[in-house]
């Protein structure tokens, strides 16, 4: 019952017309980890996520989520799996005609129609607050929110049904560094508090260093390496070298090291 892999992708092939996106891609996501997925623009990170959550029918390959096959599933068959995951899309993808609180209640109403109105309101309010939004955001419409707040509202909706698995598509893109760091902390806190497994697509090197347990690198139409960042650094691949060894990669690494190993002399008691 308690299989170690929440997601397993085997031999996935995706193509749009002539253009091949994935060729024999394999990936496993373990229970309780934050897996970061990186890759250059256009390498099919989002397509991989869409394949896993069943929005994109792959040409070939096997995808299992919670040990259930996801390929060629009818809409109604997928419901049991869907109520166990939450998805945050890149732009938030909030329903523009509903308020934030109503947005959060949509998955609740859909999957648990018996819940009373009072309970729905309570759940929506604490989820909104847990996602780092102020209380008065509940009655605002998405068009009245800033980009960062929209992402948080999207996260609140993704978390509405207490999922075990969370998909985040570039959650920190377009946020200011403070907002991005907060979002990272929020993701890690939620993972630790709620025991979530997180599938995280990102370009943000700081996020990778700060919260990811493992990182999967997509290049050459497949996952070329999966592992902790230290392990990836040991691999000699031109894209990985350039990605982690480039100026931004080095800066993120320095920031991470400084954060974890503060200068010792500052904390040493006086010797005299």
């Amino acid at each position, binding site marked *: 019952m308690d299989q170690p892999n929440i997601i397993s992708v085997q031999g996935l092939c995706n193509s749009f017309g002539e253009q091949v996106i994935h060729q024999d891609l394999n990936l496993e996501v373990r229970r309780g980890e934050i897996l970061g997925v990186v890759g250059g623009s256009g390498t099919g990170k989002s397509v991989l996520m869409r394949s896993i959550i069943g929005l994109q029918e792959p040409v070939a390959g096997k995808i299992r989520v919670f040990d259930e096959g996801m390929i060629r599933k009818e809409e109604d068959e997928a419901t049991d799996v869907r109520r166990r995951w939450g998805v945050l899309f890149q732009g938030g993808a909030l329903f523009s*005609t509903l308020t934030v609180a109503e947005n959060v209640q949509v998955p609740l109403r859909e999957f648990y129609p018996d*819940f009373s109105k009072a309970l729905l309101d309570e*759940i929506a*309010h*604490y989820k909104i607050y*847990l996602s780092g939004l102020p*209380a*008065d955001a509940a009655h605002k419409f998405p*068009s009245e929110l800033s980009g960062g707040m929209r992402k948080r509202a999207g996260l609140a909706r993704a978390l509405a049904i207490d999922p075990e698995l969370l998909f985040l598509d570039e959650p920190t893109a377009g946020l200011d560094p403070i907002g991005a760091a907060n979002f990272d902390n929020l993701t890690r806190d939620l993972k630790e*508090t709620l025991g979530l497994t997180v599938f995280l697509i990102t370009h943000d090197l700081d996020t990778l260093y700060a919260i990811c347990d493992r990182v999967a690198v997509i290049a050459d139409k497949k996952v070329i390496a999966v592992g902790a960042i230290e392990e990836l650094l040991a691999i000699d691949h031109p894209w990985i070298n350039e990605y982690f060894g480039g100026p931004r990669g080095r800066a993120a690494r320095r920031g991470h090291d400084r954060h974890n190993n503060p200068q010792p002399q500052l904390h040493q008691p006086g010797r005299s």
Partner: protein
Amino acid sequence: MANAAEFLQEDLTDGGQILRLSGSFTIALIGDVDGRLRALSANVQKIDLSAVEHMDTVGAWLVHRTAKESGAKIVGAGKDASRLLQAVSGADQTDIPPRPHPPSFERFLAEVGHSVIISFTTLLQFLGFVGQVVKASFILAMNPGRFRWHAVVQHFDMVGVRALGIIGLMSFLIGIVIAQQGAVQLRQFGAEVFTINLIGRLTFRELGILMTAIMVAGRSGSAFAAQIGTMKITEEIDAMRTIGVVPAEALVVPRVIAAVMMMPLLGVYASLMAIIGGGILCWVVLEIPPATFVQRLREVTPMTDFWIGMIKAPVFGAIIAMAGCFQGMQVHGNAEQVGLKTTAAVVQAIFLVIVLDAFFAIFFSEIGWN
């Protein structure tokens, strides 16, 4: 599988009650526990979580809420449960502002007032928009180099050429309907031959142009509103402004010109198709041969009917294009607005076309073009 959430009430020795919770306090298994906990009126002193198998935030919320409302102490919480309880109690805000909800009469008055204000501001904005378009047209006439021929030709194709099929079919069928109804009614007076008058005068003077205008409003007016509205949402129009491109010149004038030029052509085409439809019906039902039909048509249809149609058509075209572009420019905020404004563009265009058509009908009668 895990057990459903459940709780028992037990009396404590020192007064009050203890709630013993068991099973899975998770969203999927919470069942009716929420309602029963809410209805609980006993003096709860303690909540015992030691028999709870699993808990998620919804379960933790129920425990937290019950504890807060009764002032009970939570005992027997495991490591995970305490962490969840801490998380939800941190997220509990007692002062959630309720959604403003004024009484219905007040809301009704507010809505009436709101729509009056909207109507007047829209009218003013429309006048301003027409002014912008006229100004842009003059500027373009002065600097023909800035004129976007390519865009105009593209819209000729969209408004005119691609509409030929549907407008032709519609007009042909309307011609048949007019002829058939005319024949049936006029036969009662033995005056079937006047069906030709009916077809000739009605199509050129009124229906050919009017039906074309309605079709163009539905096809192209809506497309204009949707295109410009989408560009507004994706900030393309703001991008244009910052580059120094005037949206009225780049987007509106080419569309208005395309509609103004295409409407008369489509109108003539529609009238001809209606006459062909009517002619075929006359031939089949009334046994009037095509040669006689054409000869009779030329006798009874004055040239002024044709000119009336040709004067009205470009005016209608301008109104349709302006209404479409104006509504597109009015889009703010979200995708729903695009749909609303597109609908508004079509309704407004058809309404204005019919009102103007009535004015034209009276005007041309008064100046003696009967």
